[in-house]
């Protein structure tokens, strides 16, 4: 059944919203997966409530999944929706603000009865309002039609109703001229053994597709042609999954086993769950009794010869602070991942924010410098987890890697990496047969200042370490005042010297000129898109940081090439404070947002144009 009128689009944003039990995450993931499979570039953004099942039909219980697909490269999940699929009145209410007039809204009219819109907080039917005439509204009795389509196959009522998300997906597949094979394969894999449920889902999907084809409300369908991405084999990855794989890859590459000690916390839990699946690589995942035990077990494992990793979010990082100090003192290879969420306290657990930067940099007692890195996109999580491990093992040191809810839950087509193409990892450790007599526990490599890691089981290298200050050479406990100062300076210098081993800052856009956009971590895609969209004739560059402490060596030189520097971050101004103290010779303007939401391209371009006009 070919679509006759197909219009080509450069890119399109589709958002699926419904009750948290409506299966919107799955529906969105399927649309994204199918599109990626067709060769589109994609970016996705799930948006769900903290409660697993908030009251049905209320705005608090709305769960959404936004998918941006494109022929050209896509760096963000998009600001506004071209198509909104709303499964009930509450979902409609929560998301209509982000649909520009003239765009398409598909609603399940079965969930827009009086009781539904009243529950959503409307005093009159929103589908009958004057405002709705500004949109291309597609009214579909999705629940009723799903029931009709599945009549007589023997499925219970509840399961029938649950298949309505597939009906909605069918509509969208027709609208964007997507084949259904990808989802059919997925459903077979998921429900293979439950034949009736499988049949129900497949039937609902097809029924939705045919419904869309038949009705007049959708006069034509659209397509987004494959993108011009780099040649190669791709798959879709989620940020947290890629983080876990980065660690597994580092373990295989270095020959050092991975130990992950963690305590579940949103939005970091997926990393623990992913590593737990891969015991076959010898990776040891350990669900500890709390965050402190998580990091402590990882430190113990690092002492005993593993790559120690612990994963958490802001509140967990706070709990790990004292143990991080121990890792700094004992200089052991440890990576701590903080998948940031809205804070303080429990804050906004399912929303994104970049507000743990200062905690990562400074949140410990004593002079306790640490290497701090950040990941900028779902696919980049793989590279940064790998690099954080490489630095931890080669410099025998703890590293903090900052991710965030937006990156962690987002997905992206990822060009599959080959292990052979990844850089080597050479742990700085004592080998069997080294001269034990000459070994001093805190003797350092003259370039990197790393101490050599000697692990239990190695005869002749027995030694004791701990949190008490130690002699600069032997590592024995030392209360000597001068020695303490020397050690404080050495630990700082050891971190600073990592700058000699990390890539330089990659300046994108204009190489010199008017405005330098500065960002770090998960805001990369939006900053890049906004930078590209700035008009006004100014020369605009983007300096995006994934290595934060130490800063890349060419940072000051890059900064000096621009008239104006704007530091954009999803917090109240943390990176800017750090830059002001590290590179005080420049002046910075901050652009901040703390709403638990990512930046929109629009607000950024607006800001950048304003700055350029004022120059």
């Amino acid at each position: 059944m070919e679509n006759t009128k197909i219009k080509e689009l450069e890119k399109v944003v589709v958002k699926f919203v419904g009750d948290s039990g409506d299966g919107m995450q799955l529906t969105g993931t399927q649309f994204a997966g199918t599109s990626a499979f067709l060769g589109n570039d994609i970016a996705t953004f799930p948006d769900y409530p903290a409660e697993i099942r908030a009251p049905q039909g209320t705005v608090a219980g709305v769960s959404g999944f936004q998918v941006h697909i494109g022929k050209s490269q896509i760096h963000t999940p998009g600001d506004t929706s071209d198509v909104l699929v709303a499964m009930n009145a509450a979902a409609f209410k929560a998301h209509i603000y982000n649909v520009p007039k003239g765009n398409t809204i598909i609603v399940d009219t079965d969930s827009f009865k009086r009781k539904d819109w009243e529950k959503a907080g409307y005093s009159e039917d929103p589908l009958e309002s004057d405002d709705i005439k500004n949109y291309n509204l597609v009214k579909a009795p999705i629940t009723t039609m799903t029931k009709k389509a599945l009549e007589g196959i023997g499925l219970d009522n509840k399961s029938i109703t649950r298949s309505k998300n597939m009906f909605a997906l069918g509509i969208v597949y027709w609208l964007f001229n997507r084949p259904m094979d990808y989802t059919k394969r997925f459903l077979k894999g998921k429900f293979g053994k439950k034949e009736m449920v499988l049949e129900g889902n497949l039937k609902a999907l097809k029924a939705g597709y045919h419904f869309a084809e038949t009705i007049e409300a959708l006069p034509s369908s659209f397509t987004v042609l494959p993108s011009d991405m780099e040649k190669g084999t791709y798959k879709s990855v989620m940020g947290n999954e890629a983080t876990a794989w980065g660690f597994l890859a580092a373990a295989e590459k270095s020959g050092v086993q991975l130990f992950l000690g963690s305590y579940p916390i949103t939005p970091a839990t997926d990393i623990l769950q992913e590593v737990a699946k891969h015991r076959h690589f010898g990776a040891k995942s350990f669900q500890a009794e709390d965050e402190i035990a998580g990091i402590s077990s990882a430190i113990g494992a690092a002492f005993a010869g593993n790559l120690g990793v612990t994963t958490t979010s802001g509140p967990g990082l706070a709990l790990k602070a004292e143990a991080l100090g121990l890792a700094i003192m004992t200089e052991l290879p440890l990576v701590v991942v903080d998948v940031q969420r809205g804070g303080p306290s429990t804050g906004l657990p399912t929303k994104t924010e970049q507000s743990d930067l200062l905690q990562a940099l400074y949140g410990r007692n004593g002079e306790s410098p640490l290497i701090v890195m950040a990941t900028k996109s779902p696919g980049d999580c793989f590279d940064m987890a790998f690099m954080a491990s490489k630095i931890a093992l080669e410099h025998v040191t703890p590293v903090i890697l900052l991710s965030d809810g937006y990156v962690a839950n987002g997905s992206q087509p990822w060009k599959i990496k080959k292990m052979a193409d990844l850089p080597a990892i050479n742990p700085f450790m004592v080998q069997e047969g080294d001269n034990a007599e000459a070994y001093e526990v805190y003797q350092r490599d003259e370039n990197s200042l790393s101490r050599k890691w000697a692990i239990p089981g190695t005869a002749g290298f027995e030694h004791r370490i701990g949190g008490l200050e130690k002699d600069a050479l032997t590592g024995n406990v030392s209360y000597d005042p001068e020695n303490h100062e020397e050690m404080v300076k050495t630990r700082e210098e050891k971190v600073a010297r990592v700058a000699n081993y990390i890539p330089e800052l990659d300046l994108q856009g204009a190489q010199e000129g008017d405005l330098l956009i500065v960002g770090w971590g998960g805001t990369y895609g939006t900053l890049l898109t906004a930078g590209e969209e700035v008009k006004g004739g100014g020369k605009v560059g983007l300096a995006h940081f994934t290595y934060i402490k130490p800063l890349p060596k060419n940072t000051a030189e890059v900064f000096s090439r621009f008239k104006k520097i704007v530091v954009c971050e999803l917090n109240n101004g943390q990176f800017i404070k750090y830059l002001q103290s590290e590179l005080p010779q420049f002046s910075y303007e901050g652009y901040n947002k703390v709403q638990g939401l990512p930046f929109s391209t629009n607000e950024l371009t607006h800001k950048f144009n304003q700055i350029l006009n004022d120059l």
Partner: protein
Amino acid sequence: MSENPVIEYKAKDFASDQEVRWCPGCGDYAILKAVQKAMPVIGVVKEDIVFVSGIGCSSRFPYYMDTYGFHSIHGRAPAIATGVKLANPDLSVWQITGDGDALAIGGNHFIHALRRNVDINILLFNNRIYGLTKGQFSPTTSLGHKTKTSPQGSIDNPFNPGELALGARAQFFARIEDINPRGMAEIFVEAAKHKGTSLVEILQNCVIFNDKVFAEWTAKEVKAENFLRVEHGKPMIFGKDQNKGLIQKGFKLEVVEIGLDGVTEDDIVVHDAHEEDITLHLMLVNLQMPMVTGVIRSVKHESFNDRMEEQIDHVRATTKYKTMDDLLSSGETWEIE
């Protein structure tokens, strides 16, 4: 004590070059000596032995052992020791802890280590006081006891470490007094042999801040009368003249004299350390007079680390991912030409 040592070590081979810095007369010295005496017997080469501790006077211990050692942070040693053991199950891992370190700040890690049954040996130096911070009451300080933070007498209910441990599903619990060097060494060897978490509570005298806190039991004149050393399979007999024993009456253990009121040795309860049910073991740990020492419970259960290794072997044999490249290219993939 003659096992088969891999190398003929002597106790002094386990002494490090660091000067021991406890107060003169501190019970920790005797414990250190006893551990050094036990080490040559456990049949493990030096490089495979790791001592992990938290913070406290007692936790300085690893510095004095010529093995691998890790003096960590207050209360967290069970988690660190767990990480060490899971990373390398071939190691013999010993955790040194105090009553504050294990039962106050580290209480959570302590109970979870016992519950999991990781194969580590925990030596709990119970002096019923915070030594390092100079004399505050601890979670084992008796009600009414005067300390720097309880000048009018403690109003805090104490834990009995053995009772807590059994509740947390400890499968090995032993108790011993610091004035009994031979007894300590024997029990440390027993703890090492047990596969799973072994907890040894050592009644340790802090001469400076809580001197003679166990004198009721340890004083020369009374110790034979007031301590009962149990041994698996042997009747619970004690006393200078070995004429006292325990019988079970209802839900309680009662002290009787053999030969009096027709009581014979056959009436005395025979110790069963291997019994799954904790009832008898609980009665023994809670008994105050006499205080029970020796191996009170020793039950074989599979250790957490063994389960972990088995699981790894199992999935290794069945997985479709032999290398990382298999995983990286798994799932739905597509080509961009």
